[in-house]
């Protein structure tokens, strides 16, 4: 202790200088928006780089399983593509016959507003009440805030921060996140919310008591969500309880389709009408 004090007094000028410079830099990076953002982005990049290296070692041992899964997914997608092509062709010839216009131009067929960017999770937490994940794709690859994130199994979360090469997502296993959804068989809308307990089970909220709900029904994303395409898989209902607090809603437990323990390959959902929707949403405020 004596020596420590001696050192402190011997280098007091240097320590005071460091102290003042530390305060200055704190003020710079805390209270200037530009500096704050650059630092945040830089930290995300560093964290992402470390996690990616770490992940590269871990994923080496999981390659076989992952390849198998990807191949399965590719085959399913190809099958769906062929089916869709066939359905489209059939629809064209079902239009009232006319020699001149027996085929409709492609522009008359609906085009999806959603497109996908493949990515990989390089860091993921599941044991906190507020979980996040880090994706190896950033603004350079076309990622922006509020993009939906899905896996081949189901919904994963939403992007909340981006840097040039990485982006930070709020996991479905985050108590702050709520996602518009519906029950596939009845089209009844509700909200998916994780209450911070089991990482495999979420709650489907706001489904009125007079609506019959069956265990085993599938829960999918609804058209109210701008982050995900309608009808994307979220999970299956495993239990329906009566509400404890006397409210008029079912207490519905949903087993998530996404296995957050094994989450690896994901897709970032790009809504091509995102800016347009946001602009309109902001206008709502004018009418309130």
């Amino acid at each position, binding site marked *: 202790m004596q020596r420590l004090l001696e050192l402190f007094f011997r280098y007091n000028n240097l320590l005071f200088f460091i102290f003042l*410079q530390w305060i*200055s830099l704190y003020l*710079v990076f805390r*209270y200037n928006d530009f500096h704050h953002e650059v630092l945040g982005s830089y930290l995300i990049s560093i964290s992402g780089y470390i996690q990616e290296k770490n992940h590269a070692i871990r994923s080496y041992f999981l390659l076989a399983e992952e390849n198998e899964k990807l191949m399965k997914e590719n085959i399913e997608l190809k099958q769906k593509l062929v089916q869709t092509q066939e359905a489209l062709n059939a629809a064209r010839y079902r239009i009232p016959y006319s020699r001149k216009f027996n085929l409709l131009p492609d522009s008359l067929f609906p085009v999806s507003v959603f497109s996908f960017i493949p990515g990989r999770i390089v860091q993921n937490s599941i044991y906190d009440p507020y979980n996040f994940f880090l994706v190896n794709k950033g603004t350079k690859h076309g990622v922006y805030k509020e993009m939906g994130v899905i896996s081949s199994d189901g919904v994963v979360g939403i992007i909340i921060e981006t840097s040039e090469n990485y982006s930070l997502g709020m996991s479905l296993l985050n108590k702050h996140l709520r996602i518009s959804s519906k029950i596939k068989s009845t089209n009844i809308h509700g909200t998916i919310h994780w209450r911070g307990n089991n990482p495999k089970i979420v709650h489907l909220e706001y489904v009125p008591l007079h609506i019959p709900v069956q265990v085993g029904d599938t829960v999918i994303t609804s058209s109210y969500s701008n982050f995900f395409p309608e009808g994307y898989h979220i999970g299956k209902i495993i239990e329906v309880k009566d509400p404890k607090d006397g409210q008029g809603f079912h207490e519905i437990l949903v087993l998530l389709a996404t296995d957050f323990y094994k989450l690896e390959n994901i897709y970032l959902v790009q809504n091509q009408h995102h800016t347009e929707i946001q602009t309109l949403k902001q206008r709502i405020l004018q009418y309130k």
Partner: protein
Amino acid sequence: MPLRLFAVFLMIIFLQIFFFNALTLFDLAYAFVFIIVLLLLPLDWDYKWVISLAFVVGIIMDISVLKLGIHAFTSVLMVTLRNSWIYIITPQINPNDKIDFKPFSQSFGWSLAYFTPLIFFYSLIYHLLADLQFTLNTFWKFFATGFYTSTLVLLIYTLFIKTSEKR
């Protein structure tokens, strides 16, 4: 420090906030005239007092331009280099003689050698920290600010401060 010199320093800081801050040329050359106050702080003052005052002056400037911390950081760094720089450009004095050292009795050449590099150094650190990168634009800002501020500081020092202090 003589009371008159202290009043001059206060006036320079006041002028910096209400006049020189608005005297930026083409968004490239900034007039950081207040640096003269930091460079003319008495050499016999305790180092901790000098950097504390530099920090306070820097914070005042930061508040006046709404960019917290940048002037404070640069001011403290510059006054730390100040004493060493004086001993380098004035070999006839050594650190023990500093109490008797009078910058006002030095030649114009000495003032030029003292102020200009430190002002350019200040400009470099300030723009590097403000931009967080060194681009061509940063270089032009560093160069233009250094040149512009040096000119103004030497003019004010020679015409107003040095002549009145000599008397």
